[in-house]
């Protein structure tokens, strides 16, 4: 059932030319060089340390690796991270 819903949404966005992040609850990630990363539509903080941040998404997780991380702002669906970003990985179970 859930899969069907996903497929419907994906089809509608393709056909109707709607922005995917709005309709499908996908994260929107903005990177400013290596120093800032701005994530919208996350579902909470899982792990946070100097060198690694793991965020929960609607589907799967987002892993950010780097150095000297500081969360500049955290709001229910937004997060601004500062530091030196080296990797951004999507983890799908």
């Amino acid at each position, binding site marked *: 059932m859930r899969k069907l819903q996903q497929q419907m949404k994906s089809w509608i966005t393709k056909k109707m030319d709607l922005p995917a992040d709005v309709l499908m609850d996908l994260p929107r990630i903005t990177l400013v060089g290596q120093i800032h990363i701005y994530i919208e539509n996350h579902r*909470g*903080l899982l792990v*946070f340390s100097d060198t690694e941040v793991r965020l929960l998404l609607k589907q799967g997780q987002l892993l950010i690796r780097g150095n000297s*991380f500081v*969360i*500049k702002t*955290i*709001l*229910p669906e937004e997060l601004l991270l500062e530091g030196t970003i080296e990797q951004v990985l999507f983890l799908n179970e």
Partner: protein
Amino acid sequence: MKNQWVTVFLGYVKVRLKGRGSERFVNECVRRGMFVWNVKRIGNEALTFHMLLKDVRRLRGVRRKNECDIAFIGRYGFPFWQKRLLRNSGFLIGFVLFFVSIIVLSNMVWNVKIEGAKPETEYLLVKELDRLGVEKGKLQFQMPDVDAIQRSLTNNVPSITWVGVELRGTAYHLQVVEKSEPEKEEALSPRNLVAKKEAVIERLFVEKGKPAVAVHDHVEKGQLLVSGMYGKEDSPTLVPAKGVIFGETWYKSEVEVPLKTTFQVYTGEFFVKHYIKFGNFKIKVWGFEENKYKRFKEDAMMYNIKFFRWSLPIAYEKVSVREEEAADRQYTEKQAIEAGKEIAQQELKKKLDEKATIVGEKVLQKRLENGKLKLSLHYKVIEDIVATQPISKPDIQKESKEKPKSS
């Protein structure tokens, strides 16, 4: 991120979280709508973040769910500064007192310097200044302004001709010119005394020279009274003639006295308003009475507050509101004549010197015209009629030629 100024204004704290599941704690906070920023990891299990002071109470609910140790390790922003200021209020009071005392001291009179006066005059001046309230250690806006002091001193201290009052910073400088310089015995050149105007000689006292007239003589203007040349005609002795000759002289004056006059007089009712001015902006600080007077006059006195040498754009203004009233004065003809005589006498006395006396007064003519009384008056005055006239050069040359002959 919220505007930083808002967070400073509301106050914020730095929190340290210890224990496992600190991420979950932060998540929970965020989900409850608390504003969290600057999250940092310290060591393995500790985490620090900033949050608003107003959200601190709501931390308790979060804590019940998550076992973490919370410690507040920093307090920032306006509410905390306020508290600290209250605690160190001595500091604040000292700071304010410092400025207040500097302002008070800058507006005090610290010195009254009197220059150019003899000790006696200086004593009189100091006494008069005391009466006006100009004293060391008084505030400057308690005393009249410089022009008023100057006027009052010149009017009330008879032995000075002029006094310049200047306010330099916190000191009054008085520059005095005294009336009676010690009289110098002038080295007079030979001269004659002649009549200043037409007169009848009343008294005469000749110190030096040869009188040419006698008492009750009628003299014309410019007529010789005392000659500075006497002795033999071919070798006269020349002296500066000296003497006092009083003569009766006559003056005519015309005055006009309106029978009915309307004046504006003060009723004696008044009240005072006090303002503090910041530039052009006025704040009333005292004197909130309603102005019930129909006719009134306002007198304003301004005083700029000083800070050291500088005038601040802050001023103290005192406005006196005095009630006025129209008063009618109605003269009868007799009263009008009396008033006219008085006016004429006063005007005449202004023209005459101190030694002159008025001995006779006669109304020559009176006419009533358009509600005005026109008077023509005649005065008899006894006054000094002496004028000097140096003995002319040809005379002196003649004398010097003649001198060797005689010796």
